[in-house]
């Protein structure tokens, strides 16, 4: 039976002029490490769910990507993260939103799926659940990246916002 893993980072206006060969190499290395983490589980007979979560953990731990370590800054200069998982075999699903200081939000989403009767937990409630489950919490410094901080500084004090990998504020309002 053929097995497959695919991963993504962000999408947007990724300007090639802003991309140095070294930076491009680092992005590609991060993506490859995520693929390898998931693939090694699959080739050893592991589940698709475990493989997908393992791949995302690698990307959450990589400061270049907007998830976990390296997340973007909110208007208040904080990091608020969201994550979700779904298993195609039994349609079980779990998600968290607006969580802070959780090292790997994807693991927390998986715990919501596996250990609660709920699908989505948010904010302080999700944090309380994480504490009960013994999750690793990190200080703000863990999530800090200079690149994201500079992005935020360009917009600080305004009502504008932008996609993680776009170079300009779109000025659009949605929803």
């Amino acid at each position: 039976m053929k097995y497959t893993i695919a991963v993504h980072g962000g999408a947007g206006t990724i300007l090639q002029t802003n991309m140095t060969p070294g930076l491009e190499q680092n992005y590609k290395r991060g993506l490859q490490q995520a693929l390898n983490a998931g693939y090694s589980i699959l080739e050893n007979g592991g589940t698709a769910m475990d493989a997908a979560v393992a791949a995302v953990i690698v990307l959450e731990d990589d400061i270049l990507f907007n998830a976990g370590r390296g997340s973007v800054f909110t208007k208040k200069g904080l990091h608020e993260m969201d994550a979700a998982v779904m298993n195609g075999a039994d349609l079980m699903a779990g998600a968290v939103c607006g969580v802070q200081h959780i090292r790997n939000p994807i693991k927390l989403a998986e715990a919501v799926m596996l250990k609660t009767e709920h699908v989505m937990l948010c904010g302080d409630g999700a944090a309380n659940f994480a504490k009960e489950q013994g999750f690793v919490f990190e200080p703000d410094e863990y999530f800090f990246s200079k690149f994201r901080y500079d992005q935020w500084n360009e917009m600080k004090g305004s009502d504008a916002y932008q996609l993680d990998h776009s170079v300009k504020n779109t000025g659009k309002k949605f929803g």
Partner: protein
Amino acid sequence: TVGAVACDMQGNIAAATSTGGMTNKNYGRIGDSPLIGCGTYANNKTCAVSCTGHGELFIKVVAAYDVSCLMEYANMNLHDAMNKVVNEKLVAINGEGGIIGVDAKGNFALLFNSEGMYRGVKTSDGLNEVAIYK
């Protein structure tokens, strides 16, 4: 936003998505892609998908579940269903971003309507690719 989709040896599939959201977001805004049905969805009968991009637009078109519905009810294959959502439905409302997906046979697609998307795929057939631009 990051994500992964996988198909294992047993033909089971799964999706996972995680994000820090948008820079300078306010008011407890959520709605990047990690919402079940909008940016993350998996069903062995159809597909497992993970999305990235302007989350509000993915919410409006219920993008992830829509890919599954197009496969289940309109008998589209994975690529065509994803193409319909990424390059027609999202584009129609100026929704920028991309989707990665697998089906239970290990087929995959990585589609986006933006200038680039960080992405990669590895299969038991020996394919191993990472890319950023079109």
